[in-house]
């Protein structure tokens, strides 16, 4: 199964992938931290988009599409990118480390934790890429 980004179906599909992908389950087995994404309007995205994932020990405990920012006031990481940059990552046109190192993907949270867990981050992106068949 796969889905169009961005959509609630896509996020549900990603949740399912993260819970069933053995490689991710293994690599992310020590990860503890939820993610709140802000996607800034650009191109086909006309207004800001938010989504939320709660990642815990190699599984995804919860997702929410278009939550209000105050619904999750203290996520472990807040990630922000423009629509074109996030879709470039999802389609493999932009290396996720390039996005982080050039601040095209802005990161707020513990950099210490992030740097310790780069393999988990990269495998999370792999899963997201694998469920993305089409971009809006």
């Amino acid at each position, binding site marked *: 199964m796969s889905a169009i980004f961005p959509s609630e179906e896509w996020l549900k599909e990603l949740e399912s992938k993260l819970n069933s992908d053995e490689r991710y389950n293994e690599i992310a087995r020590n990860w503890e931290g939820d993610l709140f994404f802000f996607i800034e309007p650009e191109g086909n995205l006309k207004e800001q988009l938010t989504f939320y994932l709660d990642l815990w020990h190699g599984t995804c405990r919860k997702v929410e599409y278009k939550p209000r920012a105050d619904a999750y006031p203290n996520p472990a990481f807040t990630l922000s990118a423009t629509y074109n940059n996030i879709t470039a990552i999802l389609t493999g046109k932009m290396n996720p480390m390039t996005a982080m190192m050039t*601040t095209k*993907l802005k*990161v707020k949270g513990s950099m*210490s*934790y992030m*740097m*310790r867990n780069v393999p988990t981050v990269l495998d999370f992106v792999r899963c997201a890429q694998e469920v993305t068949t089409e971009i809006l």
Partner: protein
Amino acid sequence: MKYFDLKMQPILKIDLTTRKAEEYRIPKQWERDFLGGASLAARILYDELTSELDPLSPEAPLLFMTGPMTGTSGPTTGRFVVCGKGPATGLWAESNIGGFWGPELRSTGYDGLWVTGRASEPVYLWLNGSRLEVRPAAHLWGMNTYHTQEKVKEEVGEKSARVCVIGQAGERQVLFASILCDHGRMAGRTGMGAVMGSKNLKAIAVHGERELPIFNLPRYKALRSEANRKLKEDNEAKVMREVGTAGAANYAEYLGAMPAKYYSRGSFPAVDEVSGAKMSETILVGRSACQGCVIACGRVVKTPKDVAKRKGPEHETMVGFGANLLNDNLESIVDLGDLCDRYGMDTISASNTIGLAFHLYEKGIVTKEVTGGLELKWGDVDAIEQLVRMIGSREGIGDLLALGSKRFGAHFGAEEDAVQVNGLEVAYHDPRGVSGMALSYATSPRGACHNQSDYFFVDWGHSREDIGIKFMDRHAQAEKSANVARHQDWRTVDNAIVMCLFANVDAEEKAALINAACGLDWTVADMMKFGERSWNLKRAINNRMGLTAQDDKLPKALLAPFPDGGSAGFVPDLEGMLFTYYEARGWDQETGKPSREKLSELGLDFAANDLWGGA
């Protein structure tokens, strides 16, 4: 191109033999073409640096240079550079250093300090505004760097004075001795501390109150604010601030780009114990910054046994005394880094040369008879510490280790085992994990250096599209060469203005800052051409001193695949990379010299005539 005559400050030139000082006015053409820092130093010293010159002789120059933005609180511009001829390499030497000393020097009214000669007895210099004193330092000889700093500051009686010093390693001319200022900031590489020691010069204290020249101050202030604001938000800067330069240890290890066990292993499973992240989570109690820097990558730590706070290790020290020697004890790395700082020696060259001793001991080439009974067992912290002390005091085997890995290896008939290029030890970014570093090390003008082009950042993912460098696979080969050349030019600009490599300032912004500071109207292309000119000038200096294409090489260990880790099985195709690199550079494939046409195109006709003959 417009040029508005910045009126750079003069350089103060002092001959320690005669104790005579004079002002050296920088020729106007050189200001425009070479700007400051290492580039201007290279032009000034071009005629001085000959193949016959003994780098530790009284005749050898030692030039402390600032850049046109040093001390102006521009993004990470509180730096200066120390230049001369490397005692271990016999090549062009430059060593970049932060802290507060450079800005203070500029405030005296001088952009540089050029030291020649040799004092008959140990001395230190006290430059207070335009007044220079040569003071006796026999009572300081034998003191470590931090004590010397404190003592000199006390003696000059000026609280705002800044002091750069050598330790016992510099006094004893350890070939990788460094110069230290402020909170453990080091001109670590290329042995400039040994050159300072050879002149019987223990310290230089400076204090000034002059306003620094900026061509267009209102514009510069606006650009500076915006650049610093962006830098605070930059992800890499956040990593440096929160986790320090050793913050990338886990990622480097994951890629198989962090060498272990003297470059023989591509993985170090204990990396979690000796990383910037671990330091942040355990012993970090503060951060330190150089003048005007918004990043603050410096670590302040306190281990359980410490009574006072002290400096924590940065990346090279962490890997050099950690994975390189199979040591997973973080607190011992703090101790070893601190010990090197106190002796005043480069932690990369020290840990690398010690690694070679362990490696040759394992092979049975270095024996207990040679080490004075010391057993060199990988990860043995006591043995490592003893070797550091023996180098600093030049006792026993330390006297041989003090010559660096090339000479140490050669002494035992094992020069090929030494992981160095042209006498400078390789840093801890392995080209088998990040292939661009193969060219960075092989072609750097000062030996195996990771700061003339920190291309590992690009190979980790940091593309630089603002200067035409797109991301390529970290194991790409000859197709990467032109990018590396371009990246070297880019970093040569930084080493001229003297800006820290950790500042992610984009190209347009950097050119605008230079223009506002210096009264130029550079485009990004002009700025990159400037970098190329300076890179070729340093190459010409080295060619004149005997460097050829045969010297652009890598040590044997880096051309054998790692047996394990994220880069197992890969080796860089150095020959292929060099061929396309020379093409991109416009260098002669046979001799390794920049072509006459290239030198002329860059306005370096004097060098063209020197290298190729003619008027």
